[in-house]
């Protein structure tokens, strides 16, 4: 078992003929991901990397049985791509695209939820169920199979922590980047629930950052409903209030959503929070060995 996706997941890559799409599709194929189709409107009938390309997701579902999608289309067309995937009956949509307007993101979110599908991202590195499948843009070589789940708002920090864990000999079950935008498909709580129920996961690393209250809500859930140990990391302790730190997720507004408030909430929920990615890995090591 793995959460959300596994070796049986049949993937369609939307935007497979673009430079990012083809580069990462090739990497995913190498990792063993079952990419059954690509979609680029107007390019239907071609083949890329041995994968048949269709004009529409509907065709990819009907003719190739795709049930998950990874989206590499540019921001102005990304919301449409998500809507198309959901409408075609895709269960899991991973949207890599960065820079999608927030009004579009809200519509995407609502549509996906109404359809009962799962949206990972946007502005995310995707999901990897280690040695089973990879839907996204992660540097797969850093992961090692094991029993630690990782959920993160930041792409690169995820890699960093996974890398440190692997160096310590601690493998991962599923690693999910939920995305750095203000409106994303999955919350920490959504993913923690899945890890809690997953037989292959024994501990979870939660990587948050300043802005929003998702970490605070996660702390509440952990305190009330998590039996598995959770280790935290929060980026942005030193970020000056009010300054915009890269993607929209990282704004401190009105004192809420500060690193302090998040770390405090997590600590109160019994979550140890590391000050550096390396420290996080060492705490996990301690926690996992204790088990």
């Amino acid at each position, binding site marked *: 078992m793995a959460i959300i996706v596994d070796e049986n997941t049949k993937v369609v890559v939307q935007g497979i003929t673009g430079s*990012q799409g083809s580069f*990462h599709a090739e990497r995913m194929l190498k990792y063993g991901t079952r990419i059954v189709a690509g979609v680029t409107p107007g390019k239907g009938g071609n083949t890329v990397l041995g994968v048949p390309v269709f004009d529409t997701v509907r065709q990819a579902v009907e003719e190739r049985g795709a049930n998950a999608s990874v989206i590499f289309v540019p*921001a*102005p067309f990304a919301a449409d791509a998500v809507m198309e995937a959901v409408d075609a009956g895709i269960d899991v949509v991973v949207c*890599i695209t*960065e*820079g*999608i*307007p*927030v*009004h*579009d993101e*809200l*519509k995407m*979110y*609502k549509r996906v939820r109404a359809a009962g599908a799962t949206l990972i991202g946007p502005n995310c*590195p995707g999901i990897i169920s280690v040695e089973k499948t990879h839907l996204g*843009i*992660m*540097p797969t070589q*850093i992961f090692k199979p094991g029993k630690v789940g990782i959920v*993160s*708002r*930041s*792409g*690169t*920090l995820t*890699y*960093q922590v996974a*890398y440190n864990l692997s160096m310590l000999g601690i493998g991962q079950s599923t690693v999910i980047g939920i995305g*750095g935008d*203000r*409106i994303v498909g999955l919350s920490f709580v959504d993913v923690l629930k899945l890890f809690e129920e997953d037989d292959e996961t024994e501990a979870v690393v939660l*990587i948050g*950052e*300043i802005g*929003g*209250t*998702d970490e605070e*809500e996660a702390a509440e859930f952990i305190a009330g409903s998590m039996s598995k140990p959770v280790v935290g*990391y929060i*980026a*942005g*302790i*030193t*970020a*000056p209030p009010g*300054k915009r*730190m*890269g*993607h*929209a*997720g*990282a704004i401190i507004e*009105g*004192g809420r959503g500060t690193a302090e408030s998040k770390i405090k909430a997590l600590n109160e929920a019994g979550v140890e929070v590391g*000050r*550096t*990615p*390396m420290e996080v890995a060492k705490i996990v090591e301690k926690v996992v060995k204790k088990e």
Partner: protein
Amino acid sequence: MRLHEYQAKQIFSEHGIPIAKGEVATSVDDVRKIAEKLGGKVVLKSQVLVGGRGKAGGIKLSNSAEEAEELARELFGKVIKGHLVSKIYVEEQLAIDKEMYVGFTLDRSRKGFTLIVSSVGGMDIEEIAAEHPDRIASVTVDPIYGLWDYQIRNVLYAAGMPKEYFKQVTAIIKSLYSILVKYEAELTEINPLVVTKSGEMIAADARLNIDDNALYRHKELEKLRDYTEVNQLERIADEKGLNYVKLDGNIGVIANGAGMSMATMDLIYLEGGKPANFLDIGGGASSEVVKEAISTILMDENVKVIFMNIFGGITRCDEVANGLVKAFSDMEVSTPIVLRLAGTNEEEGRQIIQKFVKKSGIGIYVVETMEEGAKKAVELAR
């Protein structure tokens, strides 16, 4: 992108929200002329993109054109909370009977836009919430269904809005929501929403923040961006499409991803250093972007060392290495660079750097971990 009060007010007015008579001025002379036209009794409002400008002395009352001229002389060139005053909005004075608050803001957790209304106003909404919790109410609008009248009624009743204001304030709230949707705003508010002694309801201030990601669909607004407000370096970075924030330390930071950039800054602090900036080259940066990032940081004279912390996912380490090489080949660089490369195409990247360092002999310190890198950078900055 945050609009100036005078820009937002023009949009508000076009959508039927009443505003006071006023004009924007860029010179003392303009201020006097506008004040004369408006009959002398005016307010001078510094157009700076920061909250609390009133308390910080950015808003002045004047009783005559002469006084306005004098006050304008004081205001122009003044720095309000770090923002230079180069425009003053001159507006007729209102005989204020009552102040209130209305606004919409993106609600991350409820996935919609939250309408906040208070039947008291004239202070920060946080203060209102703290001091008059019974006079403030909110509702989250589902963007799929839009704003409905009953939601406005629910909020007005809950905020203790006097019934005689319902009609006017409802119309204003509907206009605000139309503006929010039309211009893809993430925040829009009127604070204070004023009732004058003659019973008119007027937006005495106006705030409108547009989603940067949506600006490509609103070219007419992009033109309104005011660069005089922004730090020179940030402006250059913005033109290059970089995500850069100037800070006051001496260690230049380049990383990929906002989280990684913040974590890098956090590490530098932990090691006792101070970052000179935040710079996120984003995902999948080309060598050109990397080169531009380095050249931008080098314009900051405070920078003694650059720490490049890259963990490649969609970003490829070879591209980053090539960018670094390009930067060094095109410019004369004496600033040392601490470089940490990991992830996608890590090996290729390292080889490019090794080859280049061997050939050119310049100061690139390649480190294995980010902790080590931070330590090294702090050491070099001393």
